[in-house]
């Protein structure tokens, strides 16, 4: 029983990487990828770090692999956009010890701004792609990825999706194999991508791809499963599991290594079937590979490009059937919301009162765009708020407010702020410093002074950075003090200068904060003073602990943390 564990895809992948002898791991947190580094960091044999952003994480892991230690970098799908620059070059340069890149895609956009299909990156960057379908394969495939990487001196992309990352299943595990440090010798023509060298490396890369293409038809993770009828299903990743349930009697070409596409294996499969159906989420990646070879196959004709697949979507799409099931009911919507005691609440409450244009960013504070605050106009990608604000100003000439979190500011906000200074921006930037990367579950970052391994380190001081960049007007506020917050934001907006407000108040869900709150008294409503339905000033705060039903306001003792912000805004003094 000792080697049989119940693991999520992310946990299993981390375990497999550890067993493969990985020594260096780097990442920037992002759902659904976060738990990979969190689990890698627990192993004493692994140097694991939260990097400032995905590009840096990629470069750290690549550096380790060039030096001679097996290394892994993990990130969510959009993170690979940030790291795309070193990704493409790393394929040319190649590596020394094994180097695995993990992308966790989010079909259905459970917590992402788009649903890009990163299988396309493998083809674009010209590196092999492995796609596990469940936690056991996440564990197995990462080991194969390291072997492939070293054999071909090439980075290998492992693509998970939300339903693999966050599905738990039984995984049979083993022990770690130590891999000694490889010799490093300076290699100008390989690792220095001057045009003269890159030209040679490109040719070498194309040759590797031809070899990898041959291997793709032989590798055991690409297999034909015999069926009882003439239907041939080609599939990979989690889609395999859905298809297995819907097409019980079909032939399957189950692809674990999706790129380069296994041409020879497909031809063999094709001989046995009358019709080829490709079952894959989002982009028609496999379908296109088959069609490029000149074979008939259908996929997107039956299954949508949008959203996640499921057994019922596949069944409906191809067979136009549905299993009998009860009718669907409308029920109440529960959109995500700022937590009780959230330090962002006071900021968005103030911004919505001031009715200014607010350009947002990626993090918990993106929820400020939802009712009751509706206080955010844009959310594009990590670090975009400041650059967007510069553009807004250039186009419209009015004062713009940009908001960004502490982790996001360090990730890619700094460069935007430098640009704003250089190009004479006038915005008010609010840095929402809640002392953590809250959205993804409280990972540390350079501003918290704690590493991914839980060790103390030098804390990056955001105030000092902002000052050093050249901002002359800097304010600090505590968002629990509503009056002060509102006054400060108003003053900053009215100012002609570029200015920065740092709102420094730790996330209400941090352990120390929760312990402090536990000692506080919960807020209560004096029903005689409360005007109920007629007033609702407290409801506009958007605190989940406060609710109104049948004309009466109540504060849930279960949810209230005792931050006392609602007490400040009740005009009747009915909250204490």
């Amino acid at each position, binding site marked *: 029983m000792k080697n*049989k564990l*119940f693991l999520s895809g992310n946990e299993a992948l981390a375990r497999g990487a550890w067993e493969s002898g990985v020594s260096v791991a780097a990442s920037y947190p992002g*759902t*659904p990828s976060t738990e990979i580094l969190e689990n890698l960091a627990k192993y004493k044999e692994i140097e694991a770090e939260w990097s400032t952003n995905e590009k840096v994480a990629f470069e750290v892991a690549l550096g380790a692999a060039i030096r001679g230690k097996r290394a892994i970098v993990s990130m969510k799908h959009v993170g690979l956009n940030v790291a795309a620059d070193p990704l493409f070059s790393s394929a040319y340069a190649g590596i020394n010890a094994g180097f695995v890149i993990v992308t966790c895609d989010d079909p259905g956009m*459970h*917590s992402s701004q788009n649903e890009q299909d990163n299988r396309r990156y493998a083809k674009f960057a010209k590196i092999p792609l492995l796609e596990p379908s*469940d936690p056991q394969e996440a564990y197995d495939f990462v080991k194969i990825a390291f072997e492939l990487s070293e054999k071909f001196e090439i980075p290998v992309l492992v693509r998970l999706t*939300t*339903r693999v990352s*966050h*599905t*738990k*299943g*039984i995984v049979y595990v083993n022990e770690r194999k130590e891999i000694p440090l490889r010799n490093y010798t300076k290699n100008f023509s390989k690792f220095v991508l001057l045009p003269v060298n890159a030209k040679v490396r490109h040719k070498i890369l194309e040759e590797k791809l031809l070899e990898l293409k041959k291997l793709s038809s032989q590798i055991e993770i690409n297999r034909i499963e015999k069926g009882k009828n003439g239907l041939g299903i080609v599939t990979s990743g*989690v889609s*395999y*599991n*859905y298809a*297995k*349930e819907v097409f019980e009697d079909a032939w399957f070409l189950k692809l674990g290594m999706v790129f380069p596409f296994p041409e020879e294996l497909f031809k063999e499969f094709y001989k046995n079937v009358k019709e080829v159906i490709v079952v894959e989420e989002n982009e028609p990646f496999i379908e296109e590979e088959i069609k490029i070879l000149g074979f008939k196959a259908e996929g997107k004709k039956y299954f949508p490009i949008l959203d996640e697949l*499921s*057994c*019922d979507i596949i*069944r409906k799409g191809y067979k136009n059937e*549905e*299993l*009998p*099931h*009860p*009718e*669907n*009911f*409308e*029920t*109440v*919507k*529960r*959109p*995500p*919301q*700022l*937590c009780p005691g959230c330090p962002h609440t006071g900021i968005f409450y103030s911004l919505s009162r001031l009715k200014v244009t607010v350009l947002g960013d990626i993090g*918990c504070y993106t*929820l400020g765009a939802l*009712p*009751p605050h509706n206080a955010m106009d844009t959310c594009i990608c990590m670090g975009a708020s400041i650059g967007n604000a510069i553009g807004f100003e250039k186009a419209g000439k009015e004062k713009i407010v940009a908001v960004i979190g502490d982790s996001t500011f360090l990730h890619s906000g700094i460069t935007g702020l430098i640009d704003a200074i250089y190009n004479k921006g006038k915005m008010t930037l609010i840095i929402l410093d809640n002392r953590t990367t809250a*959205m*993804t*579950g409280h990972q540390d970052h350079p501003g918290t002074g704690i590493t991914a391994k839980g060790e103390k380190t030098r804390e990056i001081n955001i105030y000092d950075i902002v000052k050093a960049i050249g901002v002359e007007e800097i304010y600090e506020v505590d968002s629990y003090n509503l009056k002060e917050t509102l006054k400060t934001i108003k003053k900053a907006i009215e100012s002609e200068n570029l200015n920065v407000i740092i709102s420094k108040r730790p996330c209400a869900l941090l352990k120390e904060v929760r312990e402090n709150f536990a000692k506080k008294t919960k807020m209560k409503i004096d029903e005689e003073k409360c005007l109920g339905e007629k007033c609702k000033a407290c*409801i506009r705060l*958007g605190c*989940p602990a*406060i*609710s*109104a*039903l049948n004309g009466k306001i109540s504060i849930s003792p*279960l*949810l209230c943390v005792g931050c006392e912000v609602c007490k400040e805004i009740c005009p009747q003094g009915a909250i204490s």
Partner: protein
Amino acid sequence: MDKKEFNIIICGVGGQGILLASEILALTAIESGFDVKKSEVHGMSQRGGSVFSHVRIGEKVYSPIIEKGKGDILLSLEKAETLRWVHYLKKDEPLIIMSDLEIIPPLVSLGITSYPKDVEKMLKDISSKLFIIPAKKISEEVKDIRVLNIFFLGFLSNFLPFDIKKWEEIIKSKVPENKLEINLNTFIKGKEFIKHFD
């Protein structure tokens, strides 16, 4: 119980212990010799939103999520959340275990939308195997609303072929030492609560 496959949805609202309950259920099934897959969505759904977990138990499980029309059991710790998942249940007399707790979301407080009425009646039309648990009353009895999830697991255990010792073993491994007694007692209370329905 000769059935070899169970598709169970556990749902509710963030903070109710849905994920812990589904973890205990899944581990108990594994200990009892089954293959199990469990799927839930992390991230934004934790922030006051609805939370769900699909637990699939069988000899060999492929899909981590339950297909519409294949759900055998719906265990719901919040009333309105039950409605969100009924169309995943099988047509023929699925088992529904539902809390009478109503957790009001801010959109209702703001008057933007309303909380569904007559939930019990709607569900009765779907299946006669409907058990409504008076959760508010029970949490007053057990004096800790945070163990309500374990009460529900105890009640659910009446419908699954797992030995009580396996359940207890897994609960022991999953809850903190100082909360063990109240959890085990609550599990038994939940199991025995079936007597209230004849």
